[in-house]
Structure formats: C-alpha cells, structure tokens
C-alpha cells in the first residue's frame, strides 16, 4: 500500500509526464482493438448488405465502384446507365428492376433517387410522416434526420452542381415528407427521392413560368433565360414540371435486380456475360467477399505494423520510466540511507508501471467501448466516404 501511495503521489505530481505515458500506452492498446472492431463491423455491414442484394446491373467498369455506389451510396461514382437497361429487365419478366440514381447529395448526405419498390425490398419502415407521393418530395434516413435536425415539413436543398453557371441547373429544394426508422445500414445516411426528382436536379426535367411571348412575325413562342425556373416543387407549380428527351435515355447509377428465383437469376446473368455488352450484371456478395478478403490481408499487415510500433512504444515507455529512476537516484539513495526495506524500489517501479498501464488499459477500454457503441454509425460513415 505504501508503494502504491508513493507511486500515486509521484505520478500525480508529474501529471503531464504521466498523462503522456498513459495516452501513448492507451493508444497502443486501443488502436488494434478499435481497428479490429471497425473492420469486423465493416465486414458485417458489407457482407449483410451484399448478401441481401441478389444482383446489380450497371455500366461495365469497376465492379467495386458499382457495388459501393448502389449498395452503400459511397462517393465512388460508377459510369451511369440509362433507364433503357431497366426497361429491358422489366420486359424480360425475370426480375424486378429497382433504379438507383446516387449522383447528387445534400447536407452531406447522398440523395438516392429510386422507386417505391426499393423501400419494400430493403424493409424500410417509416418512423414519421408518409411515403413519397409526388415529384420533389423526400424521405430521409434516421441518421440524416438526427444529424440535421429535420423532419416532415422541413426542406433540404440539393448541393449545387455548377455554382458559377448562371444559365445552368439550380439546386432543388426538397420537401421532406417522412423519416425512416433506424436500420443500421447505409439507408440511415441517405435522402430518398423518386428517381424522377433526381432528373429534375440534373436539369433533365424542370418547371417554369408560362411562356407568353409569341414572336410578332412568326407566332412562335420565344423563351429566354429571363423566365423564372422553379427551384421548389409545390402543388401550385407541379403541373409546370416536364421532362425533355426520351425517358429511356435518362441516366441512373445502376439497378438492383431482384429475380424471382435462382433460375431466373442465372438466365439474366447469362445475358450480360458478353464482354462487348456495355452493361454488366454482378453478384454483390462475390465483389464484397473479394473486398473483405483484401481488407483483412491489409489488416494483417496493419497488425504487424501495430505490433512493431507497439513494441517500440512500450520500449520507449520503459526507457522513460528507467530514465526517471536514474533522475531519481538521489531519492533512492535517501530512501536507502533512511533504512528503506529491500525491494521497496522495485515495488515503487512496479507500482508506477502498473498504475500507468492500468489507467491506460481503462482509457483504451473506454475508447473501444465508445467505438463499439458508435460502431454502426462509424462504419456507415466510413463506407459512405
């Protein structure tokens, strides 16, 4: 007890040095545990989501980018495909295509343009408000609602795409009509709109004031940039919204393809095996399994590096403790002259080391507990960026 008392008194008096040592030791202990926690969480999230998604159709290119953008709404952008790809799936009668357009964002959250089928497919349940009904409405994920403090009746503005182009596409103000209950998936981080709303954001569809300026000579209607375009869709102006061009050519990021059975899935996949086909149909689980295997190979390297750094850091801590004892030689000499019992110096050294490591272990456990409690959110955030 006396050794512990003296050790505590010394560590408290030299609080800065003690604090640095505790922090270093805690980080050494916590980093491998935190990385393990996050990686396990990421693996589970990635795997669960991928396993729950039978097929994804998208532009031929990076399979990983396609999976990350359509399943996890990450910043990776796969080259867009057109709605014609979805029509082809419909026409085949082998599966239900669910369009996804993840090209835009708002308030740090991804805008996901899709159809109502998506919410049924993912089993998303409304916690507040109602489902999407008309153009310009949005239903937001639980995390977005909490982070931005938004709910039904509030609005969100899509992030500007071309800020300095006065003649370009302006941000669209989205009317929030519902909030989904937490699902522990990337859906919590998303702002869902009808896929047609994303085409309005893209400028393919728009609404504006009536054009009442017929040319005096020809009788043609003349429009110009002076005509006010609506940047919010309301019951009063929704009828003025219209789209230009062939709907089959409208862009989407990809499609979730939900076949009715394994046989239909196999037939569908076979149709997209041709390397000359600009589209590819992939099984997300295969892509994610490969990704996870790669991540864990990297983790093995990370673990080795952490071990080396940990050994070096503990050696540095041991050196710091040893040097502090050399600096305290006079104190030890005094203790000896005053009749200190044998082993008291060793007890002091052991007590100080154990107290430092004990506090460091508690701190590390606290850090790990925080990461574990926030694990789902952190993993979702990491996957989304």
């Amino acid at each position, binding site marked *: 007890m006396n050794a512990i008392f003296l050790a505590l008194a010394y560590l408290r008096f030299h609080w800065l040095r003690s604090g640095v040592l505790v922090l270093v030791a805690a980080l050494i202990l916590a980093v491998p545990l935190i990385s393990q926690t996050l990686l396990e969480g990421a693996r589970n999230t990635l795997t669960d989501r991928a396993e729950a998604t039978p097929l994804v159709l998208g532009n031929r290119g990076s399979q990983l980018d396609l999976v990350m953008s359509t399943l996890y709404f990450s910043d990776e952008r796969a080259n867009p495909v057109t709605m014609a790809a979805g029509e082809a799936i419909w026409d085949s009668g082998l599966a239900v295509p669910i369009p996804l357009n993840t090209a835009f964002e708002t308030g740090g959250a991804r805008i996901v343009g899709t159809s109502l089928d998506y919410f049924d497919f993912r089993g998303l349940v409304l916690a507040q408000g109602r489902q999407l009904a008309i153009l310009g409405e949005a239903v937001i994920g639980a995390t977005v609602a909490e982070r931005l403090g938004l709910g039904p009746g509030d609005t969100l503005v899509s992030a500007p795409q071309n800020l300095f182009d006065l003649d370009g596409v302006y941000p669209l103000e989205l009317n929030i009509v519902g909030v989904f209950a937490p699902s522990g998936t990337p859906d919590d981080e998303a702002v869902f709109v009808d896929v047609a709303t994303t085409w309005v954001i893209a400028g393919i569809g728009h609404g504006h004031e009536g054009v009442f300026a017929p040319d005096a000579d020809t009788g043609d209607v003349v429009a110009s940039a002076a005509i006010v375009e609506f940047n919010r869709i309301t019951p009063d102006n929704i009828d003025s919204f219209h789209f230009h061009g062939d709907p089959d050519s409208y862009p989407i990021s990809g499609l979730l393809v939900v076949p009715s059975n394994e046989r239909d899935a196999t037939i569908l996949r076979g149709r997209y095996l041709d390397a000359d086909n600009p589209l590819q149909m992939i099984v997300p689980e295969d892509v994610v399994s490969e990704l996870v295997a790669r991540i864990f190979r990297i983790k093995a390297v990370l673990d080795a590096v952490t071990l080396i750094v940990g050994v070096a850091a503990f050696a540095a801590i041991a050196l710091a403790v040893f040097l502090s004892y050399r600096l305290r030689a006079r104190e030890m000499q005094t203790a000896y002259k005053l*009749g200190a*019992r044998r082993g*008291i110096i060793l007890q002091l050294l052991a007590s100080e080391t154990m107290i430092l490591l004990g506090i460091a272990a508690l701190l590390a456990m606290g850090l790990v507990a925080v990461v574990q409690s926030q694990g789902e959110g952190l993993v979702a955030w990491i996957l989304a960026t």
Partner: protein
Amino acid sequence: MIEIKDLRFAYPSGGFRLAIPSLKLKPGERVAVVGPSGTGKTTLLNLVAGIAVPEAGRITFAGEDVTGLSDGQRRTFRAREIGFVFQDFALLDYLTARENILYPFRIAAGAKLDPDARQRAEDLAAACGLAEKLDRRPGALSQGEQQRVALCRALVRSPRLILADEATGNLDPANKTAILDLLFARAEEVGATLLAVTHDHDLLPRFDRVIDFAAFQRPEVAA
C-alpha cells in the same frame, strides 16, 4: 552508546583511506565532527549507520556489533535507531511536508504508519513551527522550513542516534541557530545521541565535545 575500535575503511576505487583507532560516544552526548574536506567525516557517518562497510575493525551500537549485520539487518537497524539530517534536506518534491515527515514509515521495514505515528508527526511539526505548512510541498517552503521538515523526518521514529551531515550548511545565520536549537531540543527530548558533521566553527561551543577529524588519519595508511 557507540564504540569504534581499530576501524579501517577504503573505497573500492582506492585513493582514500580512513583509519580510526578508537572513538566512543556516550548516550545523549552531542558531538561535533570537524575537519578539512575529504578527510572522511561523511564516511564516518555512513560507517556508523551501516551504509558503508569497513575493511576491518568494529562498530558497536548499544553493545550490538553493527559491522557484523547483514544488509537487511543494517537497513532495519538504520530505520529503527538512526535519524539522518542532510545538508541538502533530501525532501521529496512530490510529497507534502506531512508526507515527507512520515516517509520513513512508508519505506522502512517493520515500520507501521498508525494514528500514533501521524500524531507524533503533527506534534513534531508544531514544535518546529510547521503546523500551518504541513500540506505544502517542499517547493512552497523556505530553506529553513525545508530543513525543519527534514529534522522532523529524522526524529519521527524517536531514534537513539541522530546523524547530521552539515545540517546547517545551506542555511542563513538566523536559520542556522534556529535549526540547531531545534535539533538539540528534540534530541534531548528523545534522549538521542547527536553526531554532527559541521564546518561552522561558530557552532562548536554548543556541542559537548568536538572531534577534529584530521586526527584519525594515520600517515601510514592515509592516501
């Protein structure tokens, strides 16, 4: 009380030799040791305390042969019988004055830090004018106050022998007198023998006896 006979000592590195044919200290006696630097005054204190071990000869303390004790026994002997006062006070900067006074109880074999010990520390501190400063650390005390704390630490276990190594060497004249007054008064109170090394000849009249240490250096064995 203390009897030294035919004592010879040399440091392993060589270059210094000390020889004391005979020296006796009576119980309660206050003895000053003077002499030029490097003549072995501090070494004498270390030999008496069992910190240094002689090559030959005997040191007895109250009839007990100190030179024949093991390292562990000498530690216990020091903790039980000796109070040390150092020139540089040797206080621990991370402990309060109270905890510095009680320090021997925390490190010494067989010492028990009980309420009686704490009360004794408080009483000693009060007698030395430190009652209001027990919760201060050495850095917040004057030099004179620090040496009073060191004095209390030396006396807290009621030793039978007080060894003072230049105890007033770092103090101003006013504090020198005050500390020496306290040292004599407390030593007398506990009936302790005082063996004090000093360079200050003004203080010598206050001691019962003065030993000129140069006398113990035999030409034939000295370096």
